């Protein structure tokens, strides 16, 4: 059967199970769009190509499958760069397909020509230019394998316009993937494995550090068995949230820069850290010279390049988190760590009392209240897509995720503007799920054009803007470290309610605490997208905080007379 390259691409994507493509058309990808029109593929028209990549990323994070984004050459492709880097840093399987000028024009600075494979080389797991129609199907099939194998990541396929237009015989069987034959390393090192087992069974103050690798590996059940057997408490990275129930007594919570004080203190006091599917990011460790100096370290990680990168470990087991934990499980002894657990509980002390969440209604609206109420009303069952900044940390602290893939957030790259488009992608992945965007007034303004995509696609998501009139996290740093010189952080925003209405989206402004629950309920009950503009305290800060580069135990604690003394007054 003779097909054009564009038709072959669509046919291949369909056969690979793709149902949705997030993209934006243009000259160099037009043949593909013509073929999409005749295919079963559903194309979601975004408003900016960055949104397309975030949507594909959100789709991948929510589903565990591969998200597909599409753009034309030149500016279409360069607009994808931020989204690709976001997916790269968080190991998200995204396949980006870009149009390219005709192969005869390559290198001639033709209209909308850009060397996108050159540009994206360091931020993709792999990328490739296809200039022959015969190579399209095979290359796309290879891209799908690469994107979702080992440590997942984004792959970009750049297809010249002439390859899209040319015709070729299409036969699925004969266009199978032909990836280079790589050495298969035997990663099993019995010595390291035995050392890990010995450390695990002899530690007195151990902690499991749980990362996104557990979710990517689908190892939640095995991980839980390890916890139950060993009685070792769990601390999570931001991206690990959901891999183990937040409400489980063995879960201490999030660690790192904005982790709870008892979690970080416990890590500093631990005699063994068992890191699973995480990479000792600087936001997790603080100053490496003082990080967990009393602890031996075991690192279970699929990516060999992560071993001893930031933290030198005593035993490294390279491999898939699920497989490795399953191998370890029979060797793990049942241990009684009640003294250690009791000590951690003691560390918790009165932290909960000082917690802003338990303060009486003072007439002030705090982000923590909003997010905690959101958790209560949704019974922890929503997919929450958070952006980057203060609200992201409050979300991680006050929305308790019991299930994997229910918190989607840009951790590694910290990309503002991620939340809204990623939530759209997540909704396509899980159409029956309740999806909430939790976003700051700054990040929202970066990609709010995608409100139009929501309307055009008639999808139901809920948007909670945590609006404090500042670039809050940067303001907090200025407050703590720059003597309150608020340079370039006060932020004028449009009237978000009016803006949403202009897009055709229902919207409410919320200014008092007593309105929070009814408004959240009303948004949930609506069958259309709803935007809630929460006007929260302007100069609230995220506590505790480990200043950048400081030791993990050097935390700025939640003040005793929380920020606002009025909070304790009637």
């Amino acid at each position: 059967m003779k097909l054009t390259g564009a038709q072959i691409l669509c046919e291949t994507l369909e056969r690979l199970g793709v149902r949705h493509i997030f993209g934006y058309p243009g000259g160099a990808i037009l043949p593909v769009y013509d073929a999409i029109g005749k295919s079963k593929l559903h194309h979601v028209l975004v408003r900016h190509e960055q949104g397309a990549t975030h949507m594909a990323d959100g789709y991948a994070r929510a589903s565990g499958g591969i998200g597909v984004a599409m753009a034309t050459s030149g500016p279409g492709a360069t607009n994808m760069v931020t989204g690709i880097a976001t997916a790269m840093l968080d190991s998200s399987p995204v396949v980006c397909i870009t149009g390219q000028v005709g192969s005869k024009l390559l290198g001639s600075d033709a209209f909308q020509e850009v060397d996108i494979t050159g540009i994206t080389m360091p931020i993709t797991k792999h990328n490739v230019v296809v200039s022959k129609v015969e190579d399209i199907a095979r290359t796309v099939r290879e891209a799908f394998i690469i994107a979702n194998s080992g440590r997942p990541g984004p792959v970009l396929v750049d297809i010249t316009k002439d390859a899209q237009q040319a015709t070729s015989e299409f036969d699925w069987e004969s266009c199978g993937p032909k990836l280079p034959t790589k050495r298969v390393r035997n990663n099993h090192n019995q010595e390291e494995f035995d050392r890990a087992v010995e450390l695990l069974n002899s530690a007195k103050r151990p902690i499991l550090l749980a990362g996104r690798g557990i979710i990517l590996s689908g190892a939640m059940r095995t991980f839980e068995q390890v916890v139950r057997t060993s009685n070792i408490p769990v601390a999570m990275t931001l991206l690990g949230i959901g891999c183990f129930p937040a409400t489980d007594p063995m879960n201490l919570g999030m660690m790192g820069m904005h982790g709870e004080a008892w979690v970080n203190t416990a890590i500093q006091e631990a005699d063994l850290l068992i890191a699973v599917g995480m990479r000792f990011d600087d936001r997790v460790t603080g100053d490496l010279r003082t990080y967990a100096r009393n602890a031996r370290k075991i690192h279970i990680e699929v990516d060999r390049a992560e071993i001893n990168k930031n933290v030198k470990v005593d035993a490294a087991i390279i491999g898939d988190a699920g497989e490795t934990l399953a191998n370890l499980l029979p060797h793990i002894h049942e241990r009684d760590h009640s003294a250690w657990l009791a000590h951690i509980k003691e560390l918790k002390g009165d932290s909960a009392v000082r917690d802003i969440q338990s303060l009486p209604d003072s007439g002030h609206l705090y982000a923590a209240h909003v997010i905690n109420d959101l958790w209560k009303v949704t019974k922890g069952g929503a997919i929450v897509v958070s952006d980057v900044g203060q609200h992201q940390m409050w979300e991680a602290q006050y929305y308790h995720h019991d299930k994997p893939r229910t918190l989607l957030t840009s951790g590694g790259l910290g990309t503002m503007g991620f939340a809204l488009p990623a939530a759209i992608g997540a909704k396509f992945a899980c159409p029956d799920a309740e999806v909430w965007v939790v976003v700051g007034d700054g990040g929202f303004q970066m990609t709010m054009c995608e409100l139009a995509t929501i309307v055009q696609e008639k999808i139901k998501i809920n948007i909670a803007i945590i609006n404090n009139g500042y670039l809050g996290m940067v303001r907090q740093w200025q407050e703590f470290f720059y003597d309150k010189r608020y340079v370039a952080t006060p932020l004028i925003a449009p009237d978000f309610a009016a803006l949403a209405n202009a897009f055709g989206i229902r919207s409410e402004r919320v200014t008092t605490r007593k309105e929070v629950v009814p408004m959240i309920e009303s948004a949930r009950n609506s069958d259309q997208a709803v935007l809630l503009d929460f006007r929260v305290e302007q100069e609230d800060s995220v506590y505790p905080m480990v200043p950048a580069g400081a030791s993990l135990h050097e935390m700025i604690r939640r003040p005793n007379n929380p920020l606002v003394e009025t909070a304790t007054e009637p």
Partner: protein
Amino acid sequence: MQTIVAYVENKPGVLNRVASLTRRLAINIDSLTVGPTENEEIARMTICAHTDENGARRLEASLEKLVDVLVAENISDRSMLERDLALIKVAADQQNRPHLMELIKVFRGRVVDVAPESLIVEVSGTVDKIDGLLEVLRPFGVLEMARTGRIAMTRGGDLLRPPTATGSKDKDSTPAST
């Protein structure tokens, strides 16, 4: 100095990926040589990098993450041979030419071109040996020099070969249906 040998797919852009990776890891390359192997689809690289053992381990592991890199192995600690080849154009006149040729002989270099006011020496061997010859030639006036950079190979039965294809067994990866 760390020496890493890699087998890579012999196709455009692979050198760029390798170079881009070392730049990203902030590892300075002293020399990088690429040449064909007995299999025309595979090329062999020898990468000499200014880094410590840990840096070399990261480089090696990161190199192997590249789809087009089939094998990357740090052979710095192994018993190995390394060779560099240099062409050196030295100023030489009637008077000092015999003396110069004596010196070149000591270093087992070969004079491959003679002109009235210069000659070209070809010398191969370890970097130290070539550096040694250069030191000796410098007083005569080194006019031009080209060096290949190092190639390296482990000694004896310690083989480092590209993996052999066992037929494509790749399976398509599909998006999860939800």
